[in-house]
């Protein structure tokens, strides 16, 4: 497959991830795992990181089951909260997402998608999960057009998702089923991304959920939170990022942390705490463009 060709333009970002978790009844023992470190890949490189927690416990960097770096913190003392801060510097290359040729033979492209070899190689991201299974009654909602290429279809889907859902915070949470999002037509970046993935997978295009940071500045949605977008696999090209919340292709403003089948694989914080009481979680993200080269 052809990789993305890049120009020699690069951007440097500073990222702050900050979270406060408090536990009403206190904890005897706890384990937290943060999935917030930007990935090192062809288009981005982490040049600096620093972690801090206010419990005085060690921050250990580990690698999770899907191959992404995590930070683990274990506490064996009696505590009632944890404040955790991560600071990164990331160098991101300029990306031209259109830097490839559209296929001349649409039938061949489709045949490739339907081949056994392709399906086997991409099985993980063709697999439908709880959040990315298109409900039966909504299957004709957005149909792929066989007269245009996969990439064009995905671009249309990206636009359609952006138009179809209204961005609204506080109306959905991490457990809202896809059918509710389709019916009520609102949600946040996670919901936009799940819908995009569901429709792409339903049409046989491998698609994965991406969690990361979005550099603001152009009035994009996703302010001071972790952002989510999708990556779809376009035959003969590779993985391309689609941001349906903003009707964009992923660019140098999208700093990727990890990908997975859906949000469940990408939750920025997982914790095992031994407590009976309620807990409260707050977090904020700040992305700043340091300089352009």
């Amino acid at each position: 497959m052809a990789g993305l060709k890049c120009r020699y333009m690069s951007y440097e970002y500073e990222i702050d991830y900050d979270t406060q978790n408090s536990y009403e009844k206190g904890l005897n023992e706890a384990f937290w795992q943060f999935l917030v470190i930007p990935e090192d890949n062809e288009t981005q490189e982490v040049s600096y990181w620093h972690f801090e927690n206010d419990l005085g416990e060690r921050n250990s960097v580990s690698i999770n089951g899907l191959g992404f770096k995590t930070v683990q913190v274990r506490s064996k003392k009696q505590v009632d909260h944890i404040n955790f801060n991560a600071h990164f510097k990331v160098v991101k290359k300029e990306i031209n997402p259109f830097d490839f040729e559209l296929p001349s033979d649409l039938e061949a492209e489709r045949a490739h998608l339907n081949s056994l070899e392709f399906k086997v190689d991409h099985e993980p991201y063709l697999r439908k999960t709880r959040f990315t299974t298109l409900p039966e009654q909504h299957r004709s909602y957005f149909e792929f057009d066989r007269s245009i290429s996969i990439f064009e279809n995905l671009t249309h889907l990206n636009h359609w998702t952006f138009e179809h859902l209204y961005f609204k915070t506080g109306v959905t949470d991490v457990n809202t089923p896809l059918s509710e999002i389709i019916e009520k037509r609102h949600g946040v970046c996670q919901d936009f991304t799940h819908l995009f993935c569901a429709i792409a997978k339903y049409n046989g295009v491998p698609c994965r959920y991406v969690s990361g940071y979005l550099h603001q500045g152009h009035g994009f949605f996703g302010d001071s939170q972790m952002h989510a977008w999708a990556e779809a696999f376009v035959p003969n090209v590779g993985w391309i990022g689609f941001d349906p919340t903003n009707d964009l292709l992923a660019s140098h403003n999208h700093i990727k942390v990890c990908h997975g089948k859906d949000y469940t694989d990408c939750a920025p914080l997982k914790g095992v705490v031994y407590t009976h009481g309620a807990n409260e979680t707050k977090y904020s993200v700040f992305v700043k463009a340091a300089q352009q080269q």
Partner: protein
Amino acid sequence: MGTAIDKTIFSSYVRKEGLFDEVFQSDGEVKSVYQKLLDLYGSRTIEDYVSLNNKAKSSFFNQGITFQVYGDKQSQEKIFPFDLFPRIIDSAEWETIEKGAIQRSLALNHFLWDVYHDKKIIKDNIVPIELLSSSPNYLHQMMDVDPPSKVYNHISGTDIIKHSDGDYYVLEDNIRCPSGVSYVICNRTALKRALFGVFNHYQTYTVTDYAENLLNLLESVKPPGVDAPVCVVITPGMFNSAYYEHSYLAKAMGVELVEGRDLFVENDFVYMKTTQGPVRVDVVYRRIDDLFIDPMEFHPDSTLGVPGLFAAYKKGNVTLANAPGTGVADDKAIYTYVPDIIKYYLGEEPILKNVHTYHCSRPDELKYVLENIKDLVIKPVDEAGGYGISIGNKLTKEEIEKVKAVVKANPRKYVAQPIMSLSVHPTYIDQKESFEQRHVDLRTFTVLGHDQQFVLKGGLTRVALKEGNLIVNSSQGGGSKDTWVLKQ
């Protein structure tokens, strides 16, 4: 020699037509291997037998080899029913079983390596991709993980039956956390206590070397760079129905029996919390389902597991036996492909038979299925746990027509198998104070390690205690028998 039917203890034993009896030939003669045993047992009265049986029961009860039954008021403890009349397998038959069990375990191990690496068998169209993509036990976290010595299914339990044709057939492979091995040993102990005299007349292999072999295996798959590995057994806890087995195995191996809360992970190393502080753990024999071993990776609500364990495993700092993700190879749907899997990886013919499977997706086989539904069991390919199964000889005419229509409408979704008949074995029935024919199966235990294979010479013979019942599971009121493998 006269037939044993004359003996007092078997005076009311009835042989039914069409059932394969393990002890008596179709003409009523005792099979030679059982002759001596029948002479010894037969000279006793049923009263002797009743009293021995009660002694054996109280021995189990006092040793606390029990399981809980939850009733209306308070929970009650019950023993697993144990039958004092042993099952004998002669050395020739055993050789086939042993070789067959190893062959299956090795082939399934190759299969696991393949589906977590190049997936050649899928790309070569031997096993359909749907079996991976529809399996909740196919763990993507295991992709490209290289377990020590390339072993995934360190411990397998293979369920084998003898059909009315006198041949052994495999019904099921269990390669997640197969249980039952402690009962093999307990049964032997109980039988020795009650009837030690009979052992003088038979050269039987011991079964007490299982723990030793298991420990050797666990040590052989230690993480690289570790000299004297610390092994532990992890259990869900004392309320698990197999807790006795977990504690037995830990004790017999002389290793710690831990629960999730006894372990913790720091910097990708696993430690157990001891009175003298943390001690590093190198090999974990897990008796917790893989989806519960680490809430960071799998079920987030699991309190049985250890947060961070999987990352430590993936990094190679601890070995898990069995490896996570083995469940993909013992799904019912994969079972039908095991003969193909054996041929594909080992280039051998299967030594133990599979129950023949007709794939309705293949036109000739579909034709056969539609014509013979009354002699077949029809199963959906992708449903687990016994859903949607139709047993031909129990269907009415209308129901047969319905099933035919459903299968014809979607032949790819269905497979069919002949209705199997499990062999029967004389079994003492408490309520009737007499011996009767009961269906039995055999679970063998295979251990794969670094360059080593071992099958416990014995295995668990499970008995369906209800008359005519084919389900031998202990949850369905099944019992068990001591199983003797003869040396010559």
